[in-house]
């Protein structure tokens, strides 16, 4: 029994991290039909931010890194995505692909390929044991931050004028503009929020791994991609469900596969994703309207 609970705890930790990765991607897609491949590079920028400011106390470093990621997200939107806004989702996706490639190589040029160590307080590298179940510090951090961020976002979207404008824009962008919502403001705001998400995810990844490197955004963004796709592009709750399933599925395959097949785990995970997608082409929770 403790074994099962242990796996559930592990899955919860991973699912929380995945949710923090997937939500911002889903949010941006909802507003402007952009599947942002460069979201991973925002995480990378956040991690390097932590590396640069790590010498100061951690809370301040985390804050400064967050500010940098948000600024980077805004700059990205302004420089690369605004000029192509309104193009087909495929064009937008290709644009983000190019931005991602650009930033990754720029980071390689600036910081080199060797990972940069970031010192984090030992508080997060401890394990709590409750009734035979081990809970890692990172798991507590991931779950805690995910709950805070998702809760905060829900309240923001439901209670503030800006949040309601965002929801309206996600529902029907043209209509939202007609009733006087300013497109630029809404889109910039959404990117800023996605920047916050990337910054938080960067913090967790750095606490977990202790380092920052140029290609670190790649795996997270693929996870975010797949989770949002599985959940239903543009659907907020779908992204959460997709992330939870992907996290749980990864842990499940890791536990259940025999050793010889374990190194092929990813193939099984993505195969399962494909099956889900074939059964429900629009995702588990389809967005409310067909986007053409």
């Amino acid at each position, binding site marked *: 029994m403790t074994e099962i609970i242990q796996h559930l705890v592990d899955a919860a930790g991973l699912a929380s991290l995945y949710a923090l990765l997937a939500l911002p991607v889903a949010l941006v897609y909802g507003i402007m039909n952009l599947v942002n491949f460069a979201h991973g590079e925002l995480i990378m920028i956040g991690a390097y931010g932590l590396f640069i400011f790590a010498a100061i106390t951690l809370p301040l470093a985390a804050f400064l890194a967050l500010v940098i990621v948000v600024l980077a997200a805004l700059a990205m939107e302004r420089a690369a995505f605004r000029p192509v806004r309104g193009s087909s989702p495929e064009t937008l996706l290709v644009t983000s692909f190019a931005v991602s490639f650009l930033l990754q190589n720029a980071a390689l040029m600036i910081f080199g*390929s060797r990972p940069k160590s970031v010192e984090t307080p030992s508080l997060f590298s401890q394990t709590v044991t409750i009734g035979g179940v081990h809970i890692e510090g990172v798991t507590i951090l991931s779950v805690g931050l995910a709950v805070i961020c998702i809760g905060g976002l829900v309240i923001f979207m439901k209670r503030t004028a800006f949040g309601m404008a965002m929801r309206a824009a996600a529902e029907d962008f043209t209509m939202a503009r007609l009733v006087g919502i300013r497109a630029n403001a809404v889109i910039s705001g959404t990117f800023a929020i996605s920047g916050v998400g990337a910054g938080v995810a960067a913090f967790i990844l750095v606490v977990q791994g202790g380092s920052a490197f140029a290609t670190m955004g790649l795996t997270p963004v693929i996870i975010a991609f797949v989770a949002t796709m599985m959940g239903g592009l543009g659907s907020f709750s779908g992204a959460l469900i997709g992330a939870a399933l992907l996290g749980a599925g990864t842990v499940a395959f890791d536990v259940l596969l025999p*050793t010889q097949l374990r190194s092929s785990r990813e193939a099984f995970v993505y195969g399962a994703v494909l099956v889900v997608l074939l059964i429900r082409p629009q995702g588990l929770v389809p967005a409310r309207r067909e986007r053409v």
Partner: protein
Amino acid sequence: MASPRLRTITVAIAIALAATVLAACGSSSEEGGGGGEENGPITIGFATAQSGAFASYDKPAVDGAKLEIEKINAEGGIDGRKIKVVEADTRTDINGAREAADEVLANGAQFMMVTCDFDYSTPSIVEAQSHNVVAMSPCAGSTKFRTDVIGPNGFSMGTGVPAEGASQAEFASEKLKAKTAYVIVDPTIDIDKQSGAAFEQRWKELGGTIVGTDVFQQEDQSFSAQISRLRELPEPPDVIYLASYPPGGVRFVRSLRAAGIESPILAESNFDGSYWLKSVPGLSDFYHTAYGSMNGDDPEPAVNQVMAEYTKKYGKPETEIGALSGYSVIEALKRAYEKAGTTEASKLVPALEEFHNEKLAIGPTTFDKLNHITLDRPVRIIQVQNGKESLVGLWKPKKVPVIE
């Protein structure tokens, strides 16, 4: 037809053609190449990674090589021939490795130093081979540098990685008095599989038990499954052999320690250098192999000398592997050239194959007709205690399993 569109196309094509023509003219004059020329300077081509993941291994190797080249040139060259250097970037890419080799060959390379990995250096070696040029990787550790695998002209100055696995097995069994071991392999790169296999085999020969094996992937976002399996053991293993490399390997160590698993960890020279130590604050009982100690306390004076010269010129390197092995590549070329009297592969290869425990800065070096990499060179064991690195000592493996 709207002609602005077509004008774009045509202009584009015209530019492309013009560029091809210009490039064709430009580089056809450069064509020298081959091992033919016997007078004038010896041209060494560095077809190494200046960008991408391997740059951090190759760059110190190039610097180390240049250190020895400058010394040789200051003394009047090898047999009176000075050394000239030409360089090209492989971009840590397989096709890039071929292009870089082509480029240095076109610029007259008569000897080639290639990238620090078997897979990614193979295309360069094949190109070198077709030009009758010898190619040597500074620090690739794969035992596949064999004439029946890669052909006659490819060499590596590195230490075959089974020596590292075997040394760790002997060290843990004799010095740490360990009886049980748990082996975790990250199958992302070939040498980790080889070193894991060598450790396992040597461990069993020494009468130890393997209480479990597991794998993880370099890109994994969480290692909870591997940690759970380790915890499920009736009692923690005496040692954990970890065949991986940073950053994934470092994240794994961090997760292990965070999970309260305190068994000593044994690892390869991939973990050399102190740049990653801050990622696992307060790490203890971690042992990895190395090519030499960077802190001036190496038992071999030659290592300390090279490291001191390197540090003076380029600053302290993040790891010593590249610096030492790059330096020794040029040492080896000098020794072999003095015997062969030429860079031509047909004579230089036999001269290199005569190396038997040849004393180079990197350590005793042996090549033979089959193996073009040293398989039984002593390694250094470096320990990390309370986040600080220190040298344990030199370890000469008594027996190195043959791993293919």
